[in-house]
């Protein structure tokens, strides 16, 4: 079997699929796509709800349909795909060690590597909820897989902790399957999910959403029996005397996602402490030349459509990289998060690309504000550009276009901050 490839992509979700197809379109040959599950699509096949594709295909699709659009094309392009294959190591010189049942241990040499491993859900342990350790506590995504792929209903009386999108979607899904969702609890004073999910998943079914609330205790011996919930103060600490008990047999956790970067870290690539993904330039290339990252392994996206967009950036960039067709700036420009900006991607701009007009910068804000200006400033505080937005919220990624014309040779930093208009 073949053990040398121009491009090896780790992960067959929306990011990896987009990279594979876009790299082919940019004349990259010899592509290997590695996926640990038995089918491609990553998390998409279990996201059976609609709402995918509105940005990218301009039509509304479900997760499995969105995945299928890419998987079908992959078969036409003769890209090598290995499913049920687990990558256990990526080295800084682009060797990949992987295992599967047919081939055993594989040592693969690549010219370019894409990290597209996606993300994982935070668990009970990550947020340390006190109490017993009975059965019946699931991350929302695990419950989603049980119900939508494997055909099990995880419980009948449910409390959801966290108003992230998967939590709200699973509140609806479990209601439709006959379970009773007693409450969705959100520790923050605002929802961290999309507004449409709040309305169509919770309000449609009269599921109460309690802001400033959290679970302070889980009880039950073999199975969850009840939870104690309490209101929290502005420091997110439970307020004594506000506790109430809710009986339930199931708890779903939708308390955040963490990019899956074990392989990245072991290869020696530095991670951004905020995104918890690698630090990248505008090509989504990590500090090791030729190793790229995109999708939720880089930073957690709200929509699969945005992941596809990022995968295409990487696919194109790999075409240029393999042709050695690149010109570096004399010094990189750092994009620095300022007031009310949690993070920005990319973190720096490295290349001179003559026909490029603008660079799209993605960011997530720390807190919701209405009627704002997104300001781009240089080192000396000079305003380079300003963009009005009606509203920014942590639940919805914000993007602005940075015009190429602003990027002169002397520029070292661009500071992005949000100001009330």
């Amino acid at each position, binding site marked *: 079997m073949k053990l040398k490839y121009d491009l090896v992509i780790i992960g067959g979700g929306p990011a990896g699929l987009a990279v594979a197809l876009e790299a082919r379109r940019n004349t990259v040959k010899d592509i290997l796509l590695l996926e640990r599950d038995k089918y491609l699509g990553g998390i998409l096949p279990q996201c059976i709800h609609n709402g995918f594709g509105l940005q990218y295909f301009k039509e509304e699709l479900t997760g499995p349909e969105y995945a299928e659009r890419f998987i079908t094309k992959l078969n036409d392009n003769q890209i090598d795909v290995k499913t049920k294959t687990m990558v256990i190591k990526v080295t800084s010189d682009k060797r990949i060690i992987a295992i599967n049942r047919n081939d055993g241990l594989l040592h693969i040499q690549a010219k370019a590597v894409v990290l597209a491993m996606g993300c994982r859900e935070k668990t009970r342990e990550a947020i340390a909820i006190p109490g017993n350790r009975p059965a019946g506590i699931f991350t929302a995504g695990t419950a989603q897989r049980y119900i939508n792929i494997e055909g099990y209903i995880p419980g009948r009386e449910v409390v959801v902790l966290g108003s992230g999108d998967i939590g709200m979607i699973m509140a609806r899904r479990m209601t*439709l399957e006959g379970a009773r969702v007693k409450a969705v609890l959100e520790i923050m004073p605002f929802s961290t999910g999309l507004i449409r999910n709040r309305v169509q998943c919770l309000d*449609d079914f009269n599921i109460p959403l309690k802001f400033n609330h959290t679970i302070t205790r889980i009880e039950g011996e073999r199975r969850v029996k009840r939870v104690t919930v309490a209101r929290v103060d502005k420091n997110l600490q439970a307020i004594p005397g506000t506790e109430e008990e809710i009986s339930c047999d199931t708890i779903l956790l939708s308390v955040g996602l963490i990019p899956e970067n074990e392989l990245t870290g072991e290869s020696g690539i530095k991670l951004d402490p905020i995104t918890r993904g690698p630090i990248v330039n505008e090509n989504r290339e990590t500090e090791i030349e030729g190793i790229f990252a995109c999708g939720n392994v880089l930073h957690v996206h709200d929509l699969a459509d945005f992941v596809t967009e990022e995968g295409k950036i990487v696919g194109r960039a790999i075409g240029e990289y393999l042709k050695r067709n690149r010109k570096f700036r004399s010094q990189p420009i750092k994009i620095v998060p300022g007031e009310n900006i949690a993070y920005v991607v990319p973190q720096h701009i490295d290349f001179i690309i003559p026909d490029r007009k603008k660079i799209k910068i993605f960011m997530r804000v720390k807190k919701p504000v209405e009627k704002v200006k997104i300001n781009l400033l240089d080192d000396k505080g000079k305003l380079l550009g300003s963009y009005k937005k009606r509203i920014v919220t942590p639940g919805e990624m914000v993007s602005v276009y940075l015009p190429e014309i602003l990027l002169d040779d002397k520029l070292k930093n661009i500071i992005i901050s949000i100001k009330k208009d």
Partner: protein
Amino acid sequence: MEDNKIICVSCPMGCRMTIQSKDGKIISVTGNTCPKGIKYAEEEFVNPLRILPTTVKVIGGELPLVSVKTEKAIPKKLLLEAMVEIAEIEVNAPVKIGQVIKSDLLGTGVSLVATRNIKRADFSSIKL
């Protein structure tokens, strides 16, 4: 006079709007900050529609379920009733994406269609 409170989903603003109505007719919409809100309020008030995504049992497939959806949105008030009808359906593998699983669901004229491919289970590697 009747007041209905709804949240607009047209954009991340999520305007909280009040629809004032009499005998099922809208008299006024307040709380919106742009014209999209009015349109959304009218649609939601007259006949709120939703696409219903769910799953159907598969016989002899490589997976036990196939994901499905209503091809078009159906009235919101029919969602739970539709789930009861869909629970009775079984389909034989293989299933093709787009395949009609049930036509004219609950007399709505809307079909239930598969949203992924499910191959037949491969038992050839199992020795009895």
